[in-house]
């Protein structure tokens, strides 16, 4: 296990845009270029945690902790990405559900690539997923999508205070997109898009429990 964690957090919107839109044929080159654009790389001594972060509410922010949190976020994004990709193929979606799934699948893939690039060699592996009946028909798909998006928003919000300022800035560009997805699918299935004045956060443990309840992660 390496004893250094390096998280490259882009400081500019250009870098975010680049991560979202460039093709994946030369990830090393892009990675280096973006590190230069970002004005440097944060490297701190630390331990790579392969699983889920165990974060105290008062844990001091650090690049090592950013890596844990980004890997946690990457797990969620991998799950979403796989879910939408499978649903588009299998759930016999039509109309606005198909449009939603197609657009959101693309967004989640971009989020995965962004987080993988930010984490570099510390990025976790793609989890093994099993969506069972959740991708079998439109109704099941809609219900599962609401859960996944709501949990993702709450999980990101729950980690906001644990991230360094630069990492928070980057994560915030994803959080509101997942919140838009949540409101979008809720609108389609006839659930209230915004049921609270403040979205309540979930801790990493709570978010993990919510994901575990779905049974979608056959193996982390």
């Amino acid at each position: 296990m390496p004893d250094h964690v390096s998280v490259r957090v882009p400081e500019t919107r250009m870098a975010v845009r680049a991560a979202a839109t460039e093709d994946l044929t030369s990830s090393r080159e892009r990675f280096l270029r973006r590190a230069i654009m970002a004005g440097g790389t944060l490297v701190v001594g630390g331990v790579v945690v392969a699983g889920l972060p165990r974060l105290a509410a008062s844990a001091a922010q650090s690049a090592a902790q950013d890596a844990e949190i980004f890997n946690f976020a990457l797990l969620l994004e991998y799950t979403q990405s796989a879910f939408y990709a499978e649903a588009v193929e299998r759930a016999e979606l039509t109309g606005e559900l198909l449009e939603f799934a197609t657009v959101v699948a693309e967004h989640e893939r971009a989020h995965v690539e962004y987080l993988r690039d930010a984490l570099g060699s510390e990025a976790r592996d793609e989890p093994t997923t099993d969506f069972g009946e959740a991708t079998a028909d439109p109704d099941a798909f809609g219900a599962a999508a609401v859960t996944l998006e709501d949990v993702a928003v709450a999980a990101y919000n729950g980690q906001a205070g644990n991230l360094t300022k630069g990492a928070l800035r980057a994560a915030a560009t994803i959080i509101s997109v997942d919140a838009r997805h949540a409101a979008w699918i809720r609108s389609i299935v006839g659930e209230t898009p915004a049921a609270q004045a403040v979205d309540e956060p979930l801790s990493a443990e709570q978010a993990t429990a919510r994901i575990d309840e779905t049974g979608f992660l056959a193996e982390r």
Partner: protein
Amino acid sequence: MTIHDIPGLACEDLDRDGALREATDELERTSRAGFLGALAGGLAAAVALGRPTAAGAALAKSDVAILNYALTLEYLQDAFYTEAERKGALSGPAARLTRVVGAVERAHVKALRKVLGEKAVARPFFDFRGVTEDSPSFVRTAVAFEDLAVAAYKGQAHMIESPAVLAAAVGIHSVEARHAAWIRYIAGATPAAEPFDEGKTKAQTLALVRSTRFVVGRPRTSSTKSPRFTG
């Protein structure tokens, strides 16, 4: 700004979603307990930082400035939805969104004023010049306001010092994103256009707000001039 991005809508386009109506009715029954509970856990925690002295006293000057900036945007949204609801010219999903989102924006104002205490900026005066009475104009403006609110909160989050204020701000940020997607859905615009949402600086945001000319120096009163046409 996305204010001109949406093609014109006819009123009948806005009255097509019975399921949303039911969902919104349900929210109206439960929202009081729901959002006040959430506020108690988020923003009220920030208030607690100020005890036992005046609210706002314990916050960093920079956090007070950010909260007042947020309050200004919430005042704008509060006034907009409250006026639209009072005028009663909207119908269907837009009317229901107005009731629900208006209540939420009023709650944001109330919570921010409570956190800031005596340091809260005064409520500006607004003149929406008929936008709250015309469905297509209302929807376009609401999309613009909500997208702007998302970008504005995002632009500040990483500069907030107090963990409690940050927790509340990110919780409001994602709710504004939900509102943006909701009104975009009603408008027939894509709720999530890009994989990443950009933030806006305070200067960019306030310049856009000024450009709407919705904020006025003082309330507009009836003209004292004689009417041009007296019939």
